[in-house]
């Protein structure tokens, strides 16, 4: 656990400084832990696991500003995973599983599962539901890998509008996935 903590913390801190490669590794490794954790917790709903892994990773990305370098990454990520799992169980009315204790951060990092499955969710279709000022920045910056400057030139939007569009667009995606917007 301590080794995992130091390793993930290093990756996340670099990621927060916009080191995209470190950040991608952080999300990927965290995703493997999440997958193992959720497969165990949702053994009756294995078909849902990959969707929830992705939803939780999106939440972690959208909330990365709430991480503080003086707290353990494992505790922070576990709290988000726990919140997302409970939210999922409630909205799917799975009552039994809500009674199991979920307070041990060690459980999330005890194992990892790298075998990523395909989620049923289709990003392309989700993106279609977003307004253009959010969809275009996400398509150009997040999917095509253009820089903010290039995306701004291509769309005729200002650079800050592109950044805001990505940020709000990802939040809007999270809300759509959750089914509250």
């Amino acid at each position: 656990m301590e080794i995992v903590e130091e390793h993930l913390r290093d990756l996340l801190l670099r990621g927060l400084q916009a080191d995209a490669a470190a950040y991608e590794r952080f999300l990927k490794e965290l995703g493997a832990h999440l997958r193992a954790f959720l497969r165990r917790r949702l053994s009756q709903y294995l078909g849902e696991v990959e969707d929830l892994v992705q939803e939780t990773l999106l939440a972690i990305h959208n909330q990365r500003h709430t991480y503080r370098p003086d707290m353990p990454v494992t505790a922070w990520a576990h709290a988000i995973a726990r919140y997302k799992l409970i939210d999922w169980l409630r909205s799917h009315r799975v009552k039994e599983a809500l009674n199991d204790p979920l307070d041990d951060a060690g459980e999330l990092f005890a194992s990892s599962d790298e075998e990523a499955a395909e989620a049923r969710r289709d990003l392309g279709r989700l993106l279609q539901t977003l307004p253009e000022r959010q969809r275009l920045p996400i398509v150009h910056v997040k999917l095509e890998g253009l820089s903010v400057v290039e995306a701004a030139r291509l769309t005729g939007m200002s650079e800050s509008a592109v950044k805001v569009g990505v940020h709000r667009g990802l939040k809007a995606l999270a809300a759509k996935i959750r089914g509250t917007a």
Partner: protein
Amino acid sequence: MKTDDWVAMLATGAQPVPAHALERRLFAALVAGGAGAATLMLLVFGLRPELAQMAALPMFWGKLGFAAALALPAGWALLRLARPGADWRRVLRWAALPVALVWALAGWALLQSPEADRWGQVLGSTWRSCPFNIALLSVPMWIACFWVLRRAAPTRLAWAGAGAGLLAGAVGALVYAVHCPEMALPFVAVWYVAGMMIPTVLGALLGPRLLRW
């Protein structure tokens, strides 16, 4: 969609995250909420002409101190409630200290005074309006706190709502104390606490609905 592609999408072009984003937002909320409460106070109640005489009494400052002593742990707890995995319980417990102290001092003051005066000390002349005035002045800060929380990641939504409500109530009480003519501690112990509980309970009730993410 494959999770590897999903992760790559999230990581691509991720912007650096400014440090202390949450603290800066809470500070902005305090400025907005405090200014909003002060404006409401001036518009609805106005300043008392005898404010200078009131400010000469220790109890005037006692009320301000009481509200500030609650706002401090509430704000600190709110910063932790807004972050997943941070320990907020221990911080929130500090809010019980000023309340316990004021209750103890008020009980002592009541015991010291003749029986005929006791009700007068508790009810003062404004007990009917005081809690609602505090709740009214807490509205701007309540909205500002929920604005902060909606941009953060609270995982205990009812508690986060209650923390936001308590901070809003304390700010409301702090501003109302400038107008409030009551100078008896038993009054503060009952009606100030009641006034701050209104936004706190509302926050706890509305938190789960407004703060989901």
